[in-house]
């Protein structure tokens, strides 16, 4: 597959597959990683990278295929097994114990011991401080993990993985929440680990990072292995065409819409420790993009506007009428719809059928004498699911077993059924395959054309630039730039999203 290295690769995966019920998450994943190498794994969202990682980590057990570590066939039944075999994994979402100290989070289960199998707290704290020094960050090792920013949480995950002294380190989008300086430090650590002869797998959406850090790259698409190349023998555009496997021209079919009256007006919104002096408006027919690094406070602002979270001061008005704080039901009545980032947790009743999910928000509209029957739900939900081409075998299929794209469509259908004036959508295409992605974009553009005001939060720069009429950039809870469609270049947005950080640190 790759390189002319004579030593056996540290990790070999060949034709590995994994399904969850009817959904095939991984069709045929292959990966071969050498010692002393940083291997990039790229592919669109939903290409199966995270599933592959979870198979390596022992979270999931593969259904079929070859899985070798250091030349020996392995079969991990749990994360403890993989850890034992020298595999460290940094997951996309940090998983920490909020009640325990930062140090305990790093060393849980393998704390340094003193005489009598007693935990040596002194040694543990010293070691944690050493790790943070190596990473060049300032986190108090004795403080609780609760309340840390996502970037800091991610750094703790990295410290945890490094301290494991693993021969294979897998990093699933570790840089998503980090600022430029932090990314540089992470890369320095990654290179030194490589030079020690360890194998690293690096998953990222940012090509500049892949080309800067990695020596080999494997591309996946739709759950399958596509190709492996040496990084100096390929170009970003090669990789894009491998990843997408089709033309990228009409990925973001944004249609210009007539911009009308302001629908949402947010004035002076504050919440201590989260966001400050947030002022903006969204007009009818306009898509406003909210950009910024993960943890900059984008989702928090959306949740506060919708009334899920409280805010300390400021006001939210919709079509000229004040919307009560901390009252999502009032927000819905006023004409807001909110599609959260984590569909599984916040947007879908995951164990209920598609029908029930779509009908849930319009219960009151379809109920007769306060009662709802299955047939009424079906009647109300059917057209919406159809219009969005939700691909489930039947409307009564469980939402949990659907793919990410279809889940998102169900959530959108659910909210469109309320006829909202304003749609707040957080990461509309996260975990959605390319085809469905442009579907979602076309849908959003169409809705804006019909006069809906849309506030879109997205971490994917091309999505923001392609879709938004206006871009608001957030950095550490403050709006640092407001850019028109014409002004919004990747450089301008990234500068506004990070300059605040760089200045402070």
């Amino acid at each position, binding site marked *: 597959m790759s390189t002319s290295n004579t030593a056996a690769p540290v990790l070999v995966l060949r034709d590995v597959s994994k399904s969850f019920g009817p959904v095939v998450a991984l069709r045929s994943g292959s990966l071969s990683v050498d010692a002393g190498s940083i291997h990039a794994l790229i592919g669109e969202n939903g290409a199966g990278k995270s599933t592959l990682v979870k198979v390596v980590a*022992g*979270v999931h057990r593969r259904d079929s295929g070859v899985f070798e570590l250091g030349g020996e066939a392995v079969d991990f039944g*749990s*994360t*403890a*097994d*993989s*850890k034992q075999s020298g595999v460290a994994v940094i*997951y996309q979402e940090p*998983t*920490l*114990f*909020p*009640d*325990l100290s930062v140090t*305990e989070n790093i060393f*849980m*289960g*393998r*704390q340094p*011991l003193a005489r009598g*199998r*007693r*935990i040596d707290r002194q040694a543990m*704290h010293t070691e944690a401080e050493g790790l*943070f*020094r*190596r990473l*060049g*960050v*300032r986190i*108090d*090792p*004795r*403080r*609780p993990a*609760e*309340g*840390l*920013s996502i970037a800091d949480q991610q750094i703790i995950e990295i410290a945890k993985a490094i301290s494991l002294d693993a021969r294979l380190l897998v990093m699933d989008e570790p840089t998503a929440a980090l600022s430029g300086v932090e990314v540089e*430090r992470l890369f*320095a650590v990654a290179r030194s680990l490589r030079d020690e002869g360890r194998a690293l797998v690096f998953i990222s959406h940012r090509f500049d990072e892949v080309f800067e850090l990695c020596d080999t790259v494997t591309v996946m698409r739709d759950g399958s292995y596509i190709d492996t190349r040496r990084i100096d023998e390929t170009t970003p555009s090669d990789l894009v065409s491998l990843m997408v496997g089709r033309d990228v021209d009409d990925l973001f079919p944004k249609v210009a819409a007539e911009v009308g009256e302001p629908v949402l007006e947010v004035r002076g919104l504050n919440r*201590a*420790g*989260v966001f*400050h002096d947030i002022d903006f408006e969204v007009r009818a027919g306009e898509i406003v993009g909210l950009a910024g690094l993960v943890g900059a406070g984008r989702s928090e602002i959306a949740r506060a506007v919708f009334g899920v979270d409280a805010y300390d001061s400021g006001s939210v008005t919709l079509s000229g009428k004040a919307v009560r704080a901390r009252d999502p039901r009032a927000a819905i009545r006023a004409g807001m719809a909110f599609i959260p980032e984590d569909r599984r947790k916040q947007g879908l009743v995951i164990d209920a059928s598609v029908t029930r999910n779509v009908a849930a928000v319009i219960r009151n509209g379809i109920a007769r004498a306060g009662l709802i029957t299955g047939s009424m739900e079906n009647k109300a939900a059917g057209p919406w699911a159809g219009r969005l081409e939700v691909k489930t075998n039947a409307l009564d299929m469980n939402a949990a077993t659907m793919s990410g794209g279809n889940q998102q469509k169900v959530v959108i259908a659910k909210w469109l059924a309320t006829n909202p004036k304003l749609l707040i959508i957080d990461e509309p295409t996260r975990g959605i395959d390319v085809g469905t992605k442009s579907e979602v974009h076309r849908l959003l553009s169409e809705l804006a054309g019909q006069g809906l005001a849309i506030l879109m939060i997205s971490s994917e720069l091309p999505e923001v630039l392609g879709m938004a009429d206006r871009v608001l950039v957030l950095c550490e*809870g403050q709006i640092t730039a407001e850019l028109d469609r014409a002004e919004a270049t990747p450089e301008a947005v990234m500068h506004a999203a990070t300059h605040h950080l760089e200045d402070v640190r």
Partner: protein
Amino acid sequence: MSHTDIERPQPGAGTSTSEALLVEPSRLSPTRRALTTVLRSRELSIFLVLVAVVVLATTKNNGFLFSSDGWRNFLLNPSILLLLAVGQAVVIITRNVDLSVGSTMALTAYLTGRLFVDQPNIPIIVVVLACLAMGAVLGLVNGVLVAYAGVPALVITLGTLYIYRGIMLTWAGSDRINAGDMPRDFLSLGTKTILSIPVLTIIAVVVLAVVGYYLHTARGGRELYAIGSDPDAAHLYGLAVRRRLLAAFVLSGALAGLAGVLYTARYGTVSSGVGSGIELQAVAAAVIGGIAIFGGSGTVWGAAIGAFLLVTINRALPSLGIEDFWQRAVVGVLILGAIVLDRVLARRQARKLAESRDHS
């Protein structure tokens, strides 16, 4: 990546010691840190309430603490609840609960009497070991059901509460174990004192010390906190979640078994109603002592002080001339107060930690 990169900023003028303890504990000197931790601990505030209750009751009636009987009762009465509260605390720390401890205690109390009746010359230590073993097995049943069936512990142990009580009632029938059935040596254990400290209290405190030490300094102990703090993260982390849960329930059961023997030694009689309702007192003691009901935080020291406070209040209120209704209401208020305080403090802490991001 030089050393200067991690220079600590000068402590801001506005940050107090308590805030620093939360956000940047390393900035404080070790002594200062330890002192602030103790001063701001839930355990200390519960302890002060206990002291206040004792002082109040003693000023009203000198004998509450200073008669030999009063002193002995002050230490002796909470001992059995203390054992149960320690076991309960360990289980609650893992985000579970064990409601079956009262029934387990009843079963082992009856086992104690039965053994002495059937084998009059049986050594006391054998009886104690038998009860520990029986309690551990009953706890293991709870643990297996909770760890493997994936049903909430509340439901499982509510079920075994009735089942274990049913077994005890069937086994005992109309039997009643009386003091005359048991050897004098054994009964004297219930009231004997060493240096004016009851033996039962010494046993309970030794157990408390061992469990407290284990939770604080052993890997297994810390993992119990981790599991309670975020069970999913614990799985992902590769901790042996099931094994730890089993161990927590076995410990809770074994301590209930020990409490059963001590109960028999203390009171001399075993009737069918032994220990009914005491499981709720154990939960109350743990919660009052600062064990978070959603797991992950609190110490057995707090639970032990909570047990002392509950029992002592129950003894103090009558001597202060307070009616029966109000005695129960006071306990209720204590529990509600403890839970409300717990939530308020947790929220305030979360808020402070979030605010600290602004200054960093």
